[in-house]
């Protein structure tokens, strides 16, 4: 029993009300928030959160009132045996019952969504400080990407998570809880998006200097649109001629980066084949304009301390912009 799946209309409405109230109080982040879910797991967890938080609030208030009352009671208002009864009932039996109920209530929510071999697998590998993404649809060729994850709405997706250098953690708050990416291990996270939109995920395990700058875009798409995108993306090939492409080549960018359709297949840095589609630059930190891209190329550490990419400070601005335009798919 996934306990919230068959929720009644009233319950859902109440929950939405509570979530909206929280969002109104605290700002309007619907982008990277466990309080604004767009996935089945996060949805369930939000319901659980509301139950837990309300329960906690009631109990906290109760204890404070009891302390207040106890401190104002006249002497001997409570007898020795009465006091022991209070300790027994309020201190031992009440929490035991509440916690047992809570455990029974929460255990089913620990069960992962059912998955099968027919589900789309997305392998994500955390690196300092970006994300290597590989789509492995059942029965079709894989697709390499980076720093962006697209998921089809309504379908089960299995994330296979690992890391090469240090421990990272993969968290898309609106979609599901987080899962660590640990060198030498592969962890699985099963999710199902429930509504389309553009969201954001972040690294939540401290992973070094630019841990704070390790995010990614998440795009939940209608299934048909997703299928079309995947097919198209797999066919994408970029020209290897033109000023930008030549500069890319000459500067040795291909030693680390791959671009489909060109001789560059290196896997050290992010795959740049689909850079022109990306919503952000540098793993979720900058708008991918030509100017920003060129500036990033010339000095990545200025934007992302500790980034592995070397600086190209001596590269003329015009050349950097040419590469940027090439990556952006501009003429």
């Amino acid at each position, binding site marked *: 029993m996934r306990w919230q799946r068959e929720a009644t209309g009233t319950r859902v409405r109440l929950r939405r009300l509570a979530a909206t109230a*929280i969002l109104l109080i*605290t700002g309007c*982040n619907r*982008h990277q928030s*466990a309080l604004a879910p767009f996935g089945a797991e*996060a949805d*369930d*967890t939000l319901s*659980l*959160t509301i139950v*837990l938080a309300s329960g*906690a609030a009631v109990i*906290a208030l109760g*204890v404070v009132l*009891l*302390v207040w009352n*106890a*401190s104002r*009671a006249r002497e001997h*208002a*409570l*007898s020795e045996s*009465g*006091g*022991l009864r*209070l*300790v027994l009932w*309020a*201190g031992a039996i009440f*929490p035991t019952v509440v*916690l047992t109920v809570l*455990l029974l209530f*929460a*255990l089913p*929510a*620990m069960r992962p969504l059912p998955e099968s071999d027919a589900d789309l697998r997305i392998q994500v590998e955390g690196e300092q400080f970006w994300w290597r993404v590989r789509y492995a649809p059942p029965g079709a060729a894989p697709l390499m990407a980076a720093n962006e994850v697209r998921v089809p709405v309504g379908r089960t997706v299995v994330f296979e998570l690992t890391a090469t*250098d*240090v*421990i990272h*953690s993969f968290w898309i*708050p609106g979609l*599901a*809880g*987080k*899962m660590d990416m*640990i060198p*030498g291990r592969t*962890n699985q996270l099963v999710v199902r998006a429930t509504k389309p939109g553009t969201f*954001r995920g*972040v*690294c*939540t395990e*401290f992973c*070094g*200097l*630019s*841990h*704070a700058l390790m995010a990614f875009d998440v795009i939940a798409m209608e299934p048909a649109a997703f299928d079309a995108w995947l097919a198209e993306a797999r066919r994408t090939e970029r020209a290897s001629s033109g000023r930008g492409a030549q500069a890319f080549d000459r500067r040795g960018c291909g030693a680390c980066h791959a671009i489909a359709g060109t001789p560059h297949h290196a896997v050290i840095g992010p795959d740049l084949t689909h850079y022109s589609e990306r919503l952000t630059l540098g793993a979720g*930190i900058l708008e991918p304009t030509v100017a920003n891209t060129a500036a990033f190329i010339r000095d990545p550490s200025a934007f992302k*301390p500790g980034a592995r990419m070397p600086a190209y400070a001596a590269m003329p601005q015009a050349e950097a912009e040419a590469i940027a335009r090439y990556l952006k798919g501009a003429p």
Partner: protein
Amino acid sequence: MSLHEQDDPELRRAQEERLRAVWDSPKGLFLKWTDTNNDAVGAWYTLTAFGFMLFAGVLGLLMRAQLAVPDNDLVEPGTFNQLFTLHGSMMMFLFAVPMFEAVSIVLLPQLLGARDLPFPRLSAFGYWSFLLGGVFVSGSIFFDVAPDGGWFMYPPLTTRTDLSGLGADIWMLGLSFIEVSSVAAAVELIVGVLKCRPPGMRLNLMPLYAWYILVVAVMILFAFPPLIAGDVLFEMERLLDWPFFDAARGGDPLLWQHLFWIFGHPEVYIVFLPSIALFAMLVPTFSQRHLLGYPWIVLAAVGTAFLSFGLWVHHMFTTGLPKISLAFFSAASEAVAIPTAVQIFVFIATMWAGRVIWSTPMLYAAGSLAIFVIGGLTGVMVAVAPFDWQAHDTYFIVAHLHYVMIGGTLMPLFAGLYYYWPLITGKKLSDRLGRIAFWLLFVGANVTFFPMHLSGLEGMPRRVFTYPAELGIDGLNLASSIGAYIFAAGAALICIDLALSPRRALAERNPWNAGTLEWLAHPQDEHWGIRSIPLVESRYPIWDQQDFMRKVDEGRYFLPDAEEGRRETIVTTVLDARPIAVIRLGTPSWKPMMTAFALGGVFILTTYHLYWLALLSGIATLAMVLWWLWTGTAEIPEKESKPIGHGMEMPLYLSGSSAPGWWAMFITMMADATAFSGLVFGYYFFWTKHEDFPPPELASAPGVFWPMVALAVGLAAWLLTVAARECNAKGRIGTARGLLVAGIAASMISGLAGIAGPWTTGMEPTLHSYPAIVWTLAIWTSVHAAIAVIMLGYALARSLAGKMTPRYDADLRNVTVYMHFLALTTVVTYATIGLFPELA
């Protein structure tokens, strides 16, 4: 001497003169630092821990300044990482744990009506280690080399020398040094509670603070060693490239996480229970009645301690462990709320049944309880695994842990500060300033940390040096930053109150009208601890025993004199506190300080890879320890026994299981065995993780032969020691000495044979986790065999020097305890490395 004698004021004055002279502190600019009396050492310890707390607090304020607005660049990312790492590490290792030990060193003898703790020089050693290690770790930030891997130091980020620098070594070695001093203090406190209670104070009459100290010190004993084992593996990887945590060579980063959290979770209760202990002292005082439900709260404290060792995996809910283990640890984590609730309701019931006086300490207690309850309830929330998957490593956890730490450690300490200040200094702190400070702290804490619950759920991860404006969490963060400075204002006001204290007038004695022993203390400073050691018949003797204070003051109880000019206290039995001996205590000395500095040298020089100097420092440490022991322990008294009053005659020498020294050895070895089991856990952890462990191509080493030789000869060394003890006791001194020589030889051979296994089979520890862990176990056991050689040699030398005789044989009995544990270690190590590969 009879009661009649004590009626004579002249006699009493003469006794007081003698006591005062014996317990007088050394004077002089340098000499005063050689003091070992618990009131001096405890005060330095407390003040130092308080200083580290303020320093770590300032680091927190810097972080809040950086995070006040989005995309801020006030603090460099690298510096920010050092700030949060040091803030967390210092608050835990340099404030919360040492503060508990410091306060206990001050209070425990008073609470137990003892003149001092059983090993005053050990307290001093612990303090100097703490000071040196603490300055070393915290000072690193001024050189921009502070640890920057988070207080949990997860490898591989922290073990890969290309990704982390000196800071990781400073953390690991500096804090290992402090862990050693924490364990030393724990040994001292446990023996103090068990052996130095006043006559008549059976376990069930013990003040609750002493109960909590006992529980917490035992927790330290079992919680710190796994971390020390982890530190050993960690530094082996960093300094020697032995791949314990490197997945590419058969290691696993999760091993560190297990070892760290087996320490790290009990740690939370280690710093929380002492605060409950302070409540347990002041709530009865300000309810003007006995604590209601004494057995309940004792059982709850013990229960919390037990459960706290079964929860560590809740820090690892997102590491992809099997769901069934998550369910188990979820349940255990929730269960710990039950004994916690029992403790809270014991206080509520006591207040309800009594007449509550709203003093300043009581205000702090109530306020911290309110904060703690919120932290405890969010703790139950994160114990629910699915919720934790969202909340883990976000600001929700930052909020949760600060509610727990502020409500469960910091504010209760302030309550204790206002409560016990008159006991320590004879003067009360200002009620007015105290109350204003309380409200600043209370409001500040809530304004800082409540919004973090929301910023966390709205997607703000922990340990980020900035966050983008688009997240819409800037309002919450600004509130948190403002709150932090309100909180800091409260802390500053308390500091001002403390600074003004010397100008204030002395308070009356026992100003809160409390019922427990410690309030016998005089406002005028007397270093002797207690005038005469009372016979205790109640949990609240000042309230319940007639004329109690006067009788104590007039020396009408035990040991009212110091005829031989020695510092002394009474030793009693563990359960029912029957007096069994008078022991002579260590006097002021340079040795503890110098030993601490020599040992510190080992850790600090290793940090800078100065191995030869570190080795020299190690030899100096050993020499200091031997000198200290030789000149200061197991001294043969000038007479068999002495009278302690009321016609009782007490021996002046104890040996075997009734002696404090035997208990200290036994307890230390429990900690040692726990650290060892952490290493053994590592071996079997690798086995569970790999399909093939040992890997088939490496499994032929270290073979069966050498490990079995080491095992057999090691057991022989143990039997020889036991035989030596028996022969010595029966007066066959020559045979005993011969057996000791044989024991030395056997220990030496066992240690060498242990190394010969991996050595002769050419095991290369950098190749794979298997040879690395085999080498580690073999080295650990061989080093212990080498220590056995030194110890047996020491006992032999004592015998030859006439300092150990058949009657006075404490040295040999203590060495035998060591050998029992060494035998266990030997069997486990060599059975594991020699026989397990045959089975696996």
